[in-house]
């Protein structure tokens, strides 16, 4: 009976998962672009920009995701007309930018300073040295810690239902309430879905890390 319910409800759970994955892609993309810019500002920028970057990062790392969601849905929407999904992308994406900026900042700083000095000595401009020498190394290094961010944001998408994004967790609640029960089994299936996609994402990212690795060039030991 419960197996039948799960099988018949699977398309709706998968649709919820699809919405969660869209939210994840959007918020990670926003976080990636903004986070990398923030990291570059914090490392190379003028002190005023650096200070602004740090302020942004402290604020968004210091507020719970669920509070950010409510603030964006009820607060920001007073000024700009945005829907639940956009509000969730902004709230979680800006928060992710704060976390990602720290990943990228750490990785940029872990590229030995000699690399920069050598590039400059060869006559490269600072911009070119960052783009062609420092970032290719730093970004490779950042894939590892970034998988962690991927996992934690994937799980954070489950909070978006509080502002009306009908993602996987909310779909599960629909099934529970329309059958007035079965909480454990439905959430066990949902947990399995989150777990599987988390592992898949991490597996892909590790593959990417391996693929991009430069043979013979390792940082281990000499950093």
């Amino acid at each position: 009976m419960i197996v039948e319910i799960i099988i018949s409800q699977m398309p709706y759970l998968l649709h919820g998962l699809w919405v969660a994955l869209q939210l994840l892609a959007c918020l990670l993309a926003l976080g990636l672009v903004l986070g990398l810019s923030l990291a570059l500002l914090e490392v190379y920028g003028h002190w005023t920009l650096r200070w602004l970057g740090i302020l942004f990062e402290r604020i968004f790392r210091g507020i719970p995701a669920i509070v950010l969601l409510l603030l964006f849905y009820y607060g920001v929407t007073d000024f700009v007309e945005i829907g639940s999904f956009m509000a969730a992308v902004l709230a979680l994406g800006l928060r992710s930018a704060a976390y990602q900026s720290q990943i990228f900042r750490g990785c940029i700083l872990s590229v030995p300073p000699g690399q920069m000095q050598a590039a400059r000595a060869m006559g490269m401009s600072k911009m070119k040295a960052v783009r062609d020498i420092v970032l290719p190394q730093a970004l490779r290094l950042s894939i590892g810690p970034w998988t962690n961010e991927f996992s934690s944001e994937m799980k954070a998408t489950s909070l978006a239902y509080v502002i009306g994004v009908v993602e996987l967790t909310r779909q599960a609640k629909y099934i529970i309430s329309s059958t007035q029960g079965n909480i454990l089994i439905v959430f066990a299936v949902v947990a399995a879905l989150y777990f599987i996609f988390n592992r898949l994402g991490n597996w892909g990212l590790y593959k990417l890390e391996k693929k991009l690795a430069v043979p013979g060039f390792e940082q281990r030991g000499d950093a």
Partner: protein
Amino acid sequence: MRKKLQGLVGGTAFAVVGALGLNAANAEALVAGVEASFPPWAYVEDGEYKGIAIDAMRAIAEDQDMEVEFKDLPWPSLIPALAKGRIDLLVTGLNITEERNEVLDFSIPWWENDDEVLVAEDSDLNVVTALCCGATVGAQGGATQYQWLEDNLEANEDVDVTLRSYEDYVTAIEDMGTGRLDAVVTSTDTAEDFIAKDRPVKIVGTIQQNQPQALAVQKGDPNEILGKLNAGIMNIYESGQWTEIVKEYSPQSTIRSIPTTMPDYVDAYEEPIPGYSD
């Protein structure tokens, strides 16, 4: 590396644009906020909104030539979302209370409810022992039942009860199943729905509240929908559609004559009532 990264960023940007396109809502339609985990009033089954409030709202919309789309929000978010104008009307089994009257305007009441005291099927508790003497009682946070328990039992020093609030009644009933709660107090239709769906609970007593329920719009009715709602409610009631809808979801319910009790503190019930007495 750079090419690959560019590809990656380009791909995600594409996903962003695609997802935004999906979310473009119909700007014309009124947005009706529902809590879609509240059978028999509003719930989702097989990907479709269902329930008394949902079907009645669809019938009213058809009758009054309105375009309405449903938006699901968790119960504690619904009233703030309406007050903030994130949704245009509230369509659920919404009880009329004085506090809510301060922040929203009610349609004419279409339902009346009492509260039921539920205990586990194998429990020995009765209506008195379930609500006193060290019992732990659950209700939905922000619901009128919770408010009643707080004002009448918890605030009374002679009655020793512990209250627990839940986001929805399904979790409260589940918690009673595991023995963390002795009793759950919920409205008559929700209680009967649990029993109809074979949950292991029984009703040990009824708290008579004659609690009217209605639809609601933003305070002051800025979109002028109250008149249409009231006229639509009367039309579907008089045509018999209302009875059909209620009987489909809740065959055991008695249909009350609409409008049910109209409390005199409700601003929207001052004569003339738009769509009803004008």
